[in-house]
């Protein structure tokens, strides 16, 4: 009774997909295409008929002084009214250019060892059947001559020849002979085509059934497992029917070609004679391929069923198919990569279901597979089918009925929590956190990629550009181009970030009081940076990982006024503007609503990341914290820009003018003075703050601000920023970059 239902579904589906106008249209098209392809020569000659009747007639000129073959050739073409066979003595008169498509030249000569030798000359495009006929005629002449000479019957000669051909195909070198390789490529393409057909059909039917909700009714009568079986089988059957139709079309086309062919009594044979390839190995190969293909298509069909059931539209169903096809492509490529040598890994992979369909037949045809391996693969594949059905059942059912598969224990009062506005708002907040992760991650990826590929492009085109621009030295052109790459690589991702900054964060503070506040922060920032610098250089020295960046940048190698200006531009001015825009305006602006601490940490991490080397990382991270705090406190851009400029500018000045003793001395004093002033102000402000905190009220206030539960919740919620795929890619990308760059720097 149960199986009747499965049969009913299969019948229904197959009938419907065959008795369908699209199927008919496709098949008509296939029929026409097959006929045209297989009768191309006939059709060509048909059209020739109409245009120029005389063109169709072929003249065969035979130069045969000893009369070895002429008679026989005449005999062979006696039934063909289009062919004239003429004897000639001056075949050399025809040169290659003169030769028309309707002329065939044959030069027959006797030979001591080969008995008969012939050279046939014809223009490309001449119908192959004439050539084939001439060849076979010459062969039979040779056979007869041998039989006369050696006293052998024709059958004996036939036997000798056959043995020779068998011998030829059995000999196969390590990589298989070419015809078998071709066979294996063709059959793999065929498998691929069939797989694609099956999977897309399954995807379509399943998503259609889901959309129409008919599944709701059907599942009252049969189980999900039976449903999957019937769907996969019906699609496979449909494809099989299609295949049978294809075979029928080929036969029809061949028949038509037989009817149209001029002689009517011999069939068209291709250049590669099929008998040359077919032997017992090939037949077993086809059998193995067929068995593995059927089973694997079934298995993949089950997987496809589950994936398609999860989709909500036909379009998504297509994507699900694409996923499986990609897996298949990868497997196929892996096979091609591994099949050259026998490796224990190959052995293991080859018995895994899905992979075995590609591995086992190809290994067999290349003579690498043994029967034990084939049997193991087959058994595993067979076992995986019921297993997959059992596993697929539940997710399929849940997905196609659109039910949430997770079963959680009931939490007391969960309904109340679910129906609160706070909870729902938090859920929305989580989604927006994920989006922030996406945007920031994308911006950082973009920045790193642009910087790296920009650098590559600059170094590739540097020579050609500098050869056309002669009035600037190559090193300066390099500096200019690097500046341009730097600006572009930061500004484009900045634009992306900018479009995501909330409107209210874009406003900056204004007013006189505010300016004083900003100046204060700039002044106290200077000594703090100095301290950080000292700590970092100390730490780097201890750890022994760091490399002096100014040295690797090669700042000492540049001389000349233009270079000085350019280096100053590249190291001091541009980063101060653009890095600040990117990090302090873009990233801080986006993160601000997620809480101050979170913003400070994440933005400074990203600031450290975009410096792309480890020795700068710690320093940039610490300075980034300072800058982010200043940015949040003042809500303006220029304080951090100025601080960034001062920091970078000092480094450049030190590197560029290290040999100007007097200048350096003045510069050092100036530096110390700035630091001293800043330090004093810092102490003064810290003292003020301390006094303020002594006041009990403000301590209370401070404690109130530090609501631990809220902070904890905030951290949990903010973690959703990192739960984004793009962000993950960013982390992996920057981590690998760091390691790679560190290795390069250490070699230098």
């Amino acid at each position: 009774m149960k199986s009747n239902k499965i049969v009913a579904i299969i019948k229904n589906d197959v009938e419907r997909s065959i008795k369908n106008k699209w199927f008919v249209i496709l098949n008509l098209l296939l029929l026409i295409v097959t006929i045209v392809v297989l009768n191309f020569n006939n059709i060509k000659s048909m059209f020739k008929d109409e245009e120029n009747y005389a063109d169709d007639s072929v003249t065969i000129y035979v130069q045969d002084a000893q009369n070895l073959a002429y008679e026989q050739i005449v005999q062979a073409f006696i039934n063909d009214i289009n062919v004239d066979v003429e004897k000639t003595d001056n075949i050399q008169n025809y040169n290659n250019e003169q030769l028309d498509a309707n002329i065939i030249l044959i030069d027959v000569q006797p030979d001591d060892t080969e008995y008969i030798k012939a050279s046939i000359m014809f223009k490309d495009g001449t119908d192959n059947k004439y050539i084939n006929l001439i060849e076979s005629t010459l062969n039979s002449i040779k056979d007869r001559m041998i039989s006369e000479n050696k006293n052998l019957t024709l059958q004996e000669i036939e036997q000798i020849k056959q043995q020779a051909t068998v011998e030829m195909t059995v000999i196969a070198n390590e990589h298989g002979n070419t015809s078998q390789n071709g066979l294996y490529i063709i059959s793999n393409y065929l498998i691929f085509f069939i797989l694609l057909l099956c999977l897309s059909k399954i995807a379509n039917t399943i998503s259609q059934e889901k959309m129409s909700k008919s599944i709701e009714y059907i599942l009252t009568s049969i189980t999900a497992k039976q449903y999957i079986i019937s769907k996969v089988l019906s699609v496979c059957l449909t494809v099989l029917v299609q295949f049978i139709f294809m075979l029928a079309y080929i036969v029809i086309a061949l028949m038509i070609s037989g009817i149209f062919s001029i002689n009517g009594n011999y069939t068209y044979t291709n250049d590669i004679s099929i008998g040359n390839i077919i032997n017992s190995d090939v037949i077993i190969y086809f059998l193995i391929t067929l068995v593995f293909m059927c089973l694997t298509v079934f298995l993949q069909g089950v997987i496809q069923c589950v994936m398609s059931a999860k989709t909500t539209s036909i379009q998504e169903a297509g994507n699900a198919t694409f996923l499986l096809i990609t897996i298949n492509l990868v497997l196929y490529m892996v096979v091609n990569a591994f099949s050259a040598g026998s490796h224990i890994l190959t052995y293991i992979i080859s018995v895994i279901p899905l992979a075995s369909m590609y591995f086992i037949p190809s290994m067999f045809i290349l003579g690498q597979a043994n029967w034990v391996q084939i049997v193991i693969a087959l058994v595993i594949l067979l076992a995986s089918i019921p297993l997959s059905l059992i596993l697929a059942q539940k997710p399929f059912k849940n997905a196609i009925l659109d039910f949430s598969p997770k079963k959680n224990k009931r939490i007391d009062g969960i309904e109340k929590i679910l129906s609160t506005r706070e909870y729902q708002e938090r859920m929305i907040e989580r989604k927006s956190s994920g989006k922030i992760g996406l945007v920031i991650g994308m911006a950082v990826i973009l920045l790193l990629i642009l910087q790296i590929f920009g650098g590559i492009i600059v170094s590739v085109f540097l020579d050609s550009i500098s050869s056309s621009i002669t009035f600037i030295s190559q090193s300066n052109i390099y500096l200019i181009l690097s500046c341009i790459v730097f600006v572009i690589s930061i500004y484009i991702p900045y634009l992306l970030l900018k479009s995501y900054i909330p409107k209210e964060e874009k406003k900056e503070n204004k007013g006189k009081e505010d300016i004083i506040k900003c100046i204060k922060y700039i002044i106290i920032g200077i000594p703090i940076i100095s301290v950080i610098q000292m700590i970092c250089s100390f730490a780097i020295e201890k750890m022994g990982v760091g490399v002096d960046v100014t040295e690797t940048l090669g700042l000492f190698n540049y001389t000349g006024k233009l270079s000085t200006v350019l280096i100053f531009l590249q190291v001091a001015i541009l980063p101060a503007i653009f890095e600040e825009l990117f990090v302090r305006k873009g990233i801080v602006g986006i993160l601000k609503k997620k809480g101050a601490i979170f913003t400070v940490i994440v933005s400074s991490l990203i600031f450290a990341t975009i410096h792309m080397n480890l020795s700068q990382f710690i320093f940039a991270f610490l300075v980034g914290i300072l800058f982010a705090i200043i940015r949040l406190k003042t809500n303006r851009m220029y304080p951090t820009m100025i601080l960034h400029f001062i920091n970078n500018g000092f480094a450049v000045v030190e590197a560029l003018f290290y040999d100007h003793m007097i200048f350096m001395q003045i510069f050092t004093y100036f530096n110390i003075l700035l630091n001293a002033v800043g330090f004093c102000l810092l102490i003064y402000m810290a003292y003020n703050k301390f006094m303020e905190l002594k006041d009990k009220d403000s301590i209370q206030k401070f404690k109130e601000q530090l609501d631990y539960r809220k902070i904890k919740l905030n951290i949990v919620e903010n973690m959703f920023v990192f739960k984004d795929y793009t962000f993950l890619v960013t982390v992996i990308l920057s981590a690998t970059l760091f390691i790679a760059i560190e290795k390069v720097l250490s070699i230098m």
Partner: protein
Amino acid sequence: MLEVKNLSKFFGIKKVVDNVSFSVENGKILGVLGKNGAGKSTTFRMILNILEPDEGEILYNGEKIDSKVSDKIGYLPEVGSLIDSYTVYEQCLYYGKMKSMSEEEIKKNMFDLLERFSIVEYANMKIKELSKGNKQKIQFIIAILHDPELIILDEPFSGLDPVSVEYFKNIILELKEKGKTIIFSSHIMSQVEMLCEDVLIIDNGRVILNCNLNDIKQEYSSKTLDITGKISKPVLNQISVFGKIEEKPNNRYIVKLANKERINDVFRLLYSSEITKFSVLNVSLNDIFLDKVGTKYEE
């Protein structure tokens, strides 16, 4: 007899069906009432073995519902389960085969039912060409095509015109005469009222009420009085001891008694007042539903 015992089902974190128990005797009609998302359809799906219950069990005539019993069950899903590209006959054929029917049976039963609805001309029309109401009729025909013993109808009247509702009603009553067990859900009370003897009210996945319709009506109606007339304050105060009084315009009072034995007491209290009307109210299922589901929210 269909028995549902302590049925529960989670959708993720939410418990959509919460400890639901009820039973339907053979040859009876049970109306299931509930708001949108109350858990009616989920309960039906569990009865039909489309979904597995997380807790509890369902027995039909003492045995579990599985593929052996499924042929005896007819189902009209709430969401349209018809495939657009099929014709009506093809659809019946496909679903009929799912119920182990032969092609001849399907053809005969289908035409009989199409004639009942006088829509024989639709037999070879495609589903997508039909209106919503006609699709519903086809779904109904499919549900009872195989002459099932247990019929589950999820919102059978949605999208139907009054004439078709009448057809449906007659057929359902006819099926009941034949001894079929019928369960159907609706949120239109009048339809439930005209068909069922028993009602089951579900709210938030829980059974609020499960009893005979007449009994509950009796109980409710005998507890509410409709009095029109001039009643003095002291008398009203006295009456308010027995139940809640709602004052309506034109000297009309609705009295909801806590106990139906108090009717006589109220009547006696009114002997000195000028009473023009005194009646025991006949409540509709609608009132009961609102009362039950409403009070639940006040808790």
